[in-house]
């Protein structure tokens, strides 16, 4: 096996920036672990904030590219996307490690994070979520392992894992479908608290559909950025293919959201001018409507820059959707209880720390493993 040969520089201004954020953030992480939840602005009437809304919900949605690509390549036999599989699965793996870290840091008792694995409570969505984080992170580790095994020259073990890849991909897809939807199901329990622009019995399904949308955008985003940063040749055919997939996913999601709006809060609620209605419109315009319109223009669909712009919009929009459910949609209930929430500098630093760690991990993996130039096999 030829070694991953690349000319990626280890130290660049970007890396340096990431390192600074990581070092500063690590200090705050230490502070949280030694002082506890007092370092946050979380409080009795607002128990979940930035870490759950952005890092956990947003992070897991961003990781959806892993199962979308794995199922396309291994289950639907769309072999032309195989070059995208490794970066997509790696991104997902890193995404899950970071989401799990965010959960770890958010807990009041991080040292008991293993409790759900042994103290089952099957009526709890939180239990379902916990089990899936554990199982799917393991599966993503397996799916990413061939890169490591070929580095370690463990060809035999690599062969075994690659033989089982269809099975692993199937199991991974199953876990992802359950996990993405169960994160929506977490919020089924707050019918009286979550604003009705977001609360609906179909939350699990909307989370699943938007995660597919997000997954397609992430795969395309990561690959375009990698090709720009690491000077890789671009196969336009792949990106147009992803863009066509995006059109279907976004259009389906748009229809679903309109149906939910008309059967839930009503169209007027979206234009009521309240903070919630503005956040809802932001999520829908930036993440759904504008990307769809752009993708329908051939000029945009067939240019790398155009696709990149659409990817960024979709990623932003879905992250806003998750934060709307977890934070903005809960604020008016909190206000009734006389409570406001805005994250502390500590919370923001930890969030940035996790994002920066993810970017650096990805870069290191790309440098030392055969992530981007993997084609055959």
């Amino acid at each position, binding site marked *: 096996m030829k070694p991953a040969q690349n000319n990626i520089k280890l130290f660049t201004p970007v890396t340096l920036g990431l390192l600074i954020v990581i070092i500063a953030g690590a200090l705050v992480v230490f502070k949280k672990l*030694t*002082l*506890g*939840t*007092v370092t946050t602005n*979380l*409080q*009795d*009437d607002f*128990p*979940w904030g930035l870490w759950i809304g952005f890092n956990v919900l947003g992070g897991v949605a961003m990781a959806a590219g892993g199962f979308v690509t794995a*199922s396309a390549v*291994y*289950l*639907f*036999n*769309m*072999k032309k996307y195989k070059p995208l599989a490794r970066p997509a699965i790696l991104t997902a793996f890193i995404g899950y490690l970071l989401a799990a870290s965010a*959960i770890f840091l*958010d*807990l*009041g*008792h991080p040292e*008991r*994070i293993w*409790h*759900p694995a042994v*103290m*089952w*409570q*099957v*009526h*709890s*969505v*939180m*239990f*379902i*979520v*916990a089990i899936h984080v554990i199982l799917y992170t393991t599966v993503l580790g397996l799916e990413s392992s061939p890169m490591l095994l070929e580095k370690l020259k463990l060809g035999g073990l690599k062969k075994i894992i690659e033989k089982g890849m*269809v099975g692993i991909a*199937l199991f991974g*897809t*199953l876990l992802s*479908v*359950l996990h993405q*939807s*169960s994160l929506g*199901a*977490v919020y*089924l*329990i*707050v*019918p*009286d*608290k979550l604003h009705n622009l977001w609360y609906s*019995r179909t939350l*699990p399904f909307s989370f699943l559909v938007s995660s597919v949308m997000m997954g397609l955008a992430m795969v395309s985003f990561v690959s375009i950025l990698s090709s720009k940063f690491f000077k890789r040749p671009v196969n336009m055919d792949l990106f147009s293919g992803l863009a066509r997939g995006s059109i279907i996913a976004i259009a389906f999601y748009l229809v679903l959201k309109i149906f939910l709006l008309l059967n839930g809060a009503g169209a007027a609620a979206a234009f009521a001018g309240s903070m919630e209605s503005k956040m809802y419109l932001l999520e829908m315009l930036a993440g759904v409507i504008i990307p769809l319109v752009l993708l329908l223009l051939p000029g945009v669909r067939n240019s790398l820059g155009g696709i990149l712009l659409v990817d960024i919009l979709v990623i932003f929009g879905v992250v806003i959707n998750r934060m709307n459910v977890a934070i903005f949609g809960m604020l008016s209930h909190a206000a*009734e*209880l006389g409570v406001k929430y805005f994250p502390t500098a500590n919370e923001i630093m930890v969030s940035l720390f996790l994002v920066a760690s993810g970017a650096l991990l990805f870069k290191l993996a790309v440098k030392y493993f055969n992530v981007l130039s993997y084609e055959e096999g």
Partner: protein
Amino acid sequence: MEASFLIDMTKCIGCRGCQVACKQWNQNQADKTRISLKFTNPVKLNANTYTNIDFFESEKAGHVSWNFARNGCFHCKQPSCVSACPVAALIKTKEGPVIYRAERCIGCRYCMLSCPFNIPKFEWEKISPRIQKCTFCHERILDNKIPACAKTCPSGTIHFGDSIENNLKEAKRRLSDNPGKYFNHVYGEKEAGGTSVLLLSALPIDQLGFQKVGDAVIPDLTWEYISGIPAIIGVVLAAGIGSWIITRRNKNMHEEDKTNETGTE
């Protein structure tokens, strides 16, 4: 005995005896007091305060009237906090109280999010934090004693000793026997599918700081999803395996075609 409170807040004289008895029995720390317009300390429940008496002024027929509201856990018949907890740290006992087992708790705070009455509180400043809320004096009940608050209440506001069903009958009787005295609603009869604590008040309940809570049995909302998981598994496996077989066959056919056409491959 099935634990249940009938709390008739029109009888409350605002002495806060229950609040003090609760602190003493549970050996909860005192809070620093503050002057507030509501003459209430602490203003809200917190990790050291399982129950408090809130104070509201209103006007009735040109006179100022005082209204007291007793806050605390409702010990729901089908508690959302219990269904939310991933490690069964919160359980509904067969006697009725919803109790907490600190050594299991991971501190995820999903119980706090899930409770429609915002009852569970968290020890935010502690490095080993616990969820804290009214225990219905479960240990006292097991010992055949009545809860500390009910034991202390001098005005008969907090009634303990009858089943939920009997308390509900009594509440309805008071409503029908005293037209105009009460706000015509038993809070806790239907809220969140029904609770072990029933409240009567003179003012509309939301004017006393209580949440508007729907009738849905909240654990059912999440169970609808969880119980559907086997079906989701079936669909995903069938779709995945099916598409794998079909797309593989297509590909093999294509390859055969190509082989026939070009003779290479």
